């Protein structure tokens, strides 16, 4: 059997194209900012900005590869930060507060999965409906006000910098990405996710239970969203209803950029990571060169559309072959 060489595989991959694209973007910003783009401070900013979305991306990538979608993640994130802050304020020990929030998030994920698996709602409609309910709950809980987070362990998680320079939560992000990447690429469960996304009927007839996979992934996604929200609260030292940048599609844009398509069954964590770097590297460059922050709001939508267009032409090329 003939095997493609590593180099050939690399150059043909979407990841490689994205990486080139990012290098171009970085070069552009570097020139405009007279080299500031490459300063450690800016690189740290880019990495820090990735932290929160990284969790959402991990969840979204898994779900999307399995052929599903969750629009409620951003709301789950936001409510998690608020809830954690409130639990802490009421004097819960911090591990208990975190566990309670995670359990709540898991419940939301479970509800999503029930609506889609058992009631057979379209994922869009179901998760949008759930996101409204979560949002309502969030407003009721917070009344729009921020709640301070002062627990030193949690604040440490959110803000500690190794040697005063390297934020510890970036390490967690890398760890999470690696773990999810390995699970997806190397394990049986990862394979099942691809199979279920590629063709749920065929997977079912081969002894895989797609519903079970979806249950796990929806719960996983909500839990990751919740972790992101708590981490955000820890970083800002307060839980507030400001929400996660990028809204319902926060985790998906990077994923789509990195080659995960809505149809399911394709893409991977590596691509999603590069997509995320591109996304945040692009946005931080905008800030750096002093462009009105609203350009970023615009860019978040535009990038999603560009990502989709990219995916469209790629799929078309595949079809033609």
């Amino acid at each position: 059997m003939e095997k493609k060489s590593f180099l050939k595989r690399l150059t043909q991959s979407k990841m490689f194209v994205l990486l080139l694209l990012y290098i171009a973007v970085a070069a552009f910003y570097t020139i405009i900012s007279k080299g500031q783009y490459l300063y450690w401070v800016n690189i740290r900013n880019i990495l820090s900005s990735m932290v929160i979305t990284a969790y959402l991306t991990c969840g979204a990538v898994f779900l999307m590869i399995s052929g599903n979608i969750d629009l409620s993640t951003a709301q789950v994130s936001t409510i998690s930060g608020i809830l954690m802050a409130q639990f802490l304020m009421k004097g819960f020990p911090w591990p208990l507060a975190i566990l309670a929030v995670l359990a709540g998030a898991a419940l939301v994920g479970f509800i999503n999965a029930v609506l889609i698996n058992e009631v057979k709602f379209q994922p869009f409609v179901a998760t949008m409906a759930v996101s409204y309910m979560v949002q309502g709950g969030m407003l009721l809980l917070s009344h729009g006000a921020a709640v301070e987070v002062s627990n030193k362990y949690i604040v440490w998680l959110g803000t500690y910098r190794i040697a005063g320079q390297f934020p510890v939560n970036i390490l967690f992000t890398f760890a999470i990405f690696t773990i999810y990447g390995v699970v997806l690429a190397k394990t049986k469960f990862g394979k099942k996710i691809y199979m279920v996304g590629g063709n749920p009927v065929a997977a079912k007839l081969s002894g895989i239970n797609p519903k079970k996979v979806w249950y796990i992934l929806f719960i996983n996604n909500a839990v990751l969203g919740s972790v992101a929200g708590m981490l955000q609260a820890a970083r800002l030292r307060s839980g507030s209803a400001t929400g996660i940048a990028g809204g319902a599609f926060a985790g998906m844009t990077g994923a789509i950029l990195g080659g995960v398509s809505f149809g399911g069954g394709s893409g991977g964590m590596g691509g999603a990571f590069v997509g995320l770097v591109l996304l945040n590297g692009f946005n931080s460059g905008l800030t750096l060169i002093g462009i009105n922050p609203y350009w970023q709001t615009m860019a978040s939508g535009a990038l999603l559309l560009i990502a989709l267009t990219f995916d469209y032409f790629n799929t078309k090329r595949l079809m033609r072959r």
Partner: protein
Amino acid sequence: MPEYIEFNGIGKAYPGVQALKDISFRAGAGKVLALLGENGAGKSTLLKILSGDIQPDEGTIIIDGEEQKFAAPYHAISRGISVIYQDRQLVPGLNVIENIYSGDLPSTRLGLLRKDEMRRTTREIIDAFGLPIDPEELVGGLSVAYQQMVEIMKAYRRDSQIIAFDEPTAPLTDAEISILFRLIRKLRDDGKIVIYVSHRLAEIFQITDEIVVLKDGRLVKTMATPETDEAELIKAMVGRDIGDTYSRLSRNDKLGDVLLEVNNLVTDAVHDVSFTLRKGEIAGFAGLVGAGRTEVVRALFGADHILSGEIKINGKIHKAGSEKASIEQGIALCPEDRKEQGLIMWRSITDNICLPVLDKLKKLLFLDRKKSETLAEKAVERYSIKTPTLDKIVSELSGGNQQKVILGRWTSDLIDTKILILDEPTKGIDVGTKAEVYQMVCDFAKQGIGVIFISSELTEVINVADTIIVMHNGHITGTVKREDATEENVLALAMLD
């Protein structure tokens, strides 16, 4: 008003299959012409060509001496052709009037609808057909039969001169069928050209004037209905030279113990089905599409809910609760629709072959890539799957090679398949590969696997299987040994009315 429609040398090929070849016949006004043939004979393709949904590779359709070109369905409609499909083309949320007029609504120059005219005409049509339907009623609220009547009225309203029916009686009760026939006779008496596709012989004799028999995409015979009988029709439908493909098969000649016993199986679509399968036996399931064959094996495999009955494997009762449980018992199902149900089209050959055995490919926490590739490599060699690499996406393989990938999946070293269910394994496969598949089926039997072989091609099923189980309407209507089976007696069982 056209006098006739003529098909002149129509041919249509799909990759690997010649769906139609040199079809020429003529249907005249005031007559009902039956289009008869086995499944896959090419009736549906011909109807699709007539409706403009697909275009023929060769040949022409001629109406009253004038050659027609239909690039899209509405071209055919505008030439007075209406095809009434089984899946009705109605909008459930609109009422009868609006559905009858969909497509060409009468309007003034300003685009305003002529609603009174619409209502009046609809009323007239309903009265002309003598149907108890309220024109204002939403179509979604009508019964299946009346929805079909709405389709017919739609054709009538368009003043279509050529009306074709695709298996119209399949979902109807006897009483409804008689209403339908009344409508069809009215159309005929009004001087329309009616084309009636069915494989229910009794109906053909009741309603039609002429019969055109298709087989394997070719026209076998044209005859007048009163001058023929069932026996002759069946002969025309199946009559073909049995090539020596079958005589060259190297078969398994020693059957083992009883492997599978199904007793009084009942599901939503299957009534009281019982049969046995021995080790090394090939049990063929014959019958028409919708006879319940696929439903039997799906229930057996745990994919459909079983209402009552029992399944025994090697004498032990098997609870068919889930696909997974069945696979653990050694049952494997290769579904009819490879693309939709069998393969993960956008994944590699390796992934598709390893699908059911992922559990056995674990090394500690991870999947053993080497082992998966060895497994796939063996399957590729064993079935001589034509591919440059194991990473090739299965959607890029030919139909035959795709089928082999599925067979490879269920017969790898890591899986102990005792009962192999093949649902239409030769569908969409070229003739050469078909012969290969037959030999594979025999080889499985030699290994002691019990094979359930479902096929709508009679010749194939009666020549490959050891026992032929014939189904009709959810029941088993007969079991025939290969030695005793002829296409005629099997078809007669399958078409019991």
